[in-house]
């Protein structure tokens, strides 16, 4: 029986909330300069016994029950955790109880990227880590990320206070600003103008659902906690590999025992990984391009086809027909925006196959065709019944979901600070990015990557990827050619978002 999530006071609040009411936010990239002083600050914000007190602390999920005027979250890169003198074994390869390789090496991979992580993520050409403003090279990689949120007008004082407190132990080498929502605060829009943050997975906090049963033959949006929180069962009914310690390494008993390995202490439980990417958007270039290619309506219909949602409302281009998808609703807006799968649009006539939302979450189930018919199900399981050229090309989406918590920024340049939460970077963020977003062959398409995020570089050699196709009822696709690069990666990193207990352990 899967475990429900109950220790909300141990979980950083961003897991449960994007702090939508706190309009202002800033993300501080820190370099630890004095480990002991950095640790005292961490002890204070984690309210470790005997630590000094500060007028703020890490906001945890249980705080969300009451009104918060500001929030602080903290996460670390692998070099940062090493500086905090965590046991070496947590960074060693060839063991199951260490940090995973993706996290240890970071988003840009090993030096000079011989392993090809950047190649797989589409971080080549203008997106290459060598061009990043932060992250990638060791000298540009932060040790920690402090995320500050405040009500309108409250951020500046909060940020100054935190930076002053941090100063003895840490150097803030970059403070990433964000822009408050431009219109009504309920709808957050990304710089191209579309409503953002729609279509999040719903975490099964109570563990009501058992993953891998017949229900998963249909698409569902209710996802096992272990996909986002370490130390809980994931969509396989298994515990994701994570750093565990021997009891001797935790003499003050700060950490709790690992549920799947009670002889060890769970450093990761109630924590997760944050993927942070600074994505600069060429807003003028985007609208120029769509206007030129769709002059009748100022480019709106083409832009909507690229995104897969309406510009004005955020509603999907697909007609919403399914009100009974697990983990969607009962909120009417949620049903209006997410009560659909692409089974209703097999030819891509309503929403192009390549639309951003159809790539980033194809809403696919474990077995195309669903539960119908025992014999048919057996035949489909064995691959003996094919349902057309596009049948069964996409992985089941329940293994590849992330929670998005990004914020937009708007200064000299504009864009989004993409932030997502997941428990297995390789299987979740990296898979989505590689197999669905940048893949020119996704869902039987050819010569096109994500219409918003694609880097437009040919792959391989002379095979172009800079087009976008819109299936048409008449027959031939409408193919828009020569898409320029609209989004450029400017920085990024993989961070570990610890539980409050783990934070106290780091601070000891």
């Amino acid at each position, binding site marked *: 029986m899967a475990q429900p999530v109950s220790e909300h006071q141990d979980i950083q609040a961003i897991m449960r909330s994007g702090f939508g009411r706190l309009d202002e936010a800033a993300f501080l990239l820190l370099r630890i300069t004095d480990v002991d002083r950095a640790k005292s600050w961490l002890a204070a914000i984690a309210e470790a016994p005997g630590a000094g007190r500060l007028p703020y602390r890490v906001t945890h999920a249980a705080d969300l029950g009451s009104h918060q005027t500001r929030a602080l979250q903290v996460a670390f890169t692998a070099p940062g955790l090493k500086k905090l003198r965590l046991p070496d074994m947590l960074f060693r*390869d*060839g*063991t*199951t109880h260490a940090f995973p*390789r993706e996290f240890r*090496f970071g988003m840009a991979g*090993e030096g000079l990227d*011989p*392993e*090809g*992580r950047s*190649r*797989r993520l589409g971080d080549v050409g203008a997106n290459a880590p060598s061009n990043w403003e932060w992250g990638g090279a060791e000298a540009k990689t932060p040790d920690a990320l402090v995320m500050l949120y405040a009500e309108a007008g409250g951020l500046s004082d909060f940020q100054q206070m935190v930076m002053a407190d941090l100063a003895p132990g840490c150097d803030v080498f970059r403070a990433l600003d964000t822009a408050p929502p431009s219109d009504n605060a309920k709808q957050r829009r990304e710089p191209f103008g579309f409503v953002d943050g729609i279509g999040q997975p719903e975490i099964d906090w109570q563990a009501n659902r058992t993953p891998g049963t017949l229900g998963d033959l249909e698409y569902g949006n209710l996802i096992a906690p272990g996909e986002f929180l370490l130390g809980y069962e994931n969509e*396989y009914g*298994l515990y*994701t*590999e994570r750093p565990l310690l021997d009891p001797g390494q935790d003499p003050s008993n700060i950490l709790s025992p690992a549920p799947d390995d009670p002889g060890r202490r769970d450093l990761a439980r109630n924590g997760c990984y944050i993927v942070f990417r600074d994505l600069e958007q060429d807003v003028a270039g985007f609208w120029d391009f769509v206007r030129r290619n769709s002059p009748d309506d100022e480019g709106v219909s083409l832009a909507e086809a690229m995104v897969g949602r309406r510009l004005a409302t955020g509603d999907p281009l697909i007609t919403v027909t399914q009100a009974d998808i697990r983990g969607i609703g009962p909120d009417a807006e949620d049903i209006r925006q997410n009560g659909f799968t692409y089974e209703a649009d097999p*030819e891509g006539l309503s929403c192009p196959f390549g639309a951003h939302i159809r790539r980033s979450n194809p809403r696919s189930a*474990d077995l195309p065709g669903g539960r119908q018919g025992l014999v048919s199900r057996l035949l*489909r*399981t*064995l*691959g*003996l019944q*094919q349902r057309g*050229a596009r049948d*069964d*090309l996409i*992985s*089941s989406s329940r*293994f590849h979901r992330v929670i998005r918590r990004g914020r937009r920024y708007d200064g000299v340049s504009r864009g989004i600070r993409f932030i997502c939460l997941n428990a297995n970077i*390789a*299987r979740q963020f*990296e*898979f989505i990015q*590689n*197999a669905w977003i940048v*893949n*020119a*062959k996704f869902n*039987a398409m*050819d010569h096109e990557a994500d219409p918003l995020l694609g880097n437009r570089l040919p*792959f*391989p*050699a*002379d*095979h172009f990827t800079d087009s976008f196709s819109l*299936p*048409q*009822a*008449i*027959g*031939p*696709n409408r*193919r828009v050619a020569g898409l320029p690069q609209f989004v450029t990666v400017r920085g990024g990193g993989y961070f570990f978002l610890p539980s409050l207990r783990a934070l106290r352990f780091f601070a000891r």
Partner: protein
Amino acid sequence: MEADLRKLLLTMNHCPGAANPSNPLVPFGAFDTLHFARFVILDDATLGDLSVFGPDAEFPDAPIYLAFLGDCDGPADLLLADFADRAGDGLRKIFAYCVGFDPHGDLLHWMRRHSVKPAVSYVNCIGRTVRQIREEEELHEALANYLASYLAGRQVPDQAKVERREIHSALIRAFGEIGPRLTPPAPTPLGWHIRRLLYILAAAAAVLVVALPVLVLSAGAALLVYCAVLFMIGAAAAVFLLHLRRQETTAPDLQSPPKPPSDDHLLALGTLQDHDVTNQYTALGSFRPGSFPRWTTTVIWWLVNVATPILYPCGNLGRIKTIHFARWVFLDGKRRGMFASNYDGSAEGYMDDFVNKVSFGLNLTFGQGVGFPRTRFLLFEGAELEQDFKNTQRRHTLPTEVWYKAYPGLTLVDIARNTRIRQGLERETMTDSEIRQWLSEI
């Protein structure tokens, strides 16, 4: 020696992981029946895992092989002769690193003597040639251009059946006038027809044997015979399952979870990957000692080899549609086995398919391997244990030094689509919805 050979092999690449088709040693591109080829050194870093079975099971003197694999149209022997003929010098240089190779001897004879027949060969689509794949891609490009220029400047209203037919006819005309010229498909070799006939005869014989008691005996006697046979089958199955379960619960290699691979190993693999939309995969491992694992695997591999061409003649292997070619090979008197494949997409996606779509197939064919995650009745768990499985298979994956693909940039989905496009040109009578579908694919 091994390091020198690796160095030599790397000179055949234009970048790590992708062979130069016209490299001077073996100019793969010059062999136009060759789909894929690779040179890989079978150096098993996981031999130490055998030690948990005791000193008798260890295999410290396991040979390090150099494997040269090719997937080709027509008989393999013909291609081998062609290789000896046109790439003899380069092959001699490479094989000079092999024990017992005589650089002045008969190369073709030596290669034949050392060729190992796979226990299972899988071909995504039997009979589809390199030439067909290349010509159909050329055709697709040409038609896409005709279509674009035909549509340019024309307003085509939706649901216009007449216009759709006109477009179809116009494309057929353009194809007839300008080309490209297509080679007519080669006739299916006689051997294939004979083999098919043998399969049908074997199936008929099997049906006859099963029906025999009813045909020759009274109802009561027939029932008795069936009961007796069923009892014997049941007893044999029970013995097998008991044995299997005992092994699945007590095998010493299953007493701790599989180890993840080292960073260096993953780095070596990763460097060679994702230079094309297709990737290579080579894995090597040992079977658990004793006759049970070997016999079980022998029978299963034999069944898989017989059944796959019948069940999956074109397009998919189970639910997997990304494998171009695959082979399962016994080595060292069935002490070890090798698996090699060419698949579309990245390793993480390939593993995702293995875990989520065909875990039972992985369990059946590899479940007797040392360190394979614990299975239940050889069908369940095993590859379903996601990270244990991924760790196991990555530890057993070998860096494939030299890898060649005859049609860069094309996936199986592309190839199948191009074939449908050609078929649409050859059919004068298509329904309106078929024409619409066909046009949407160009």
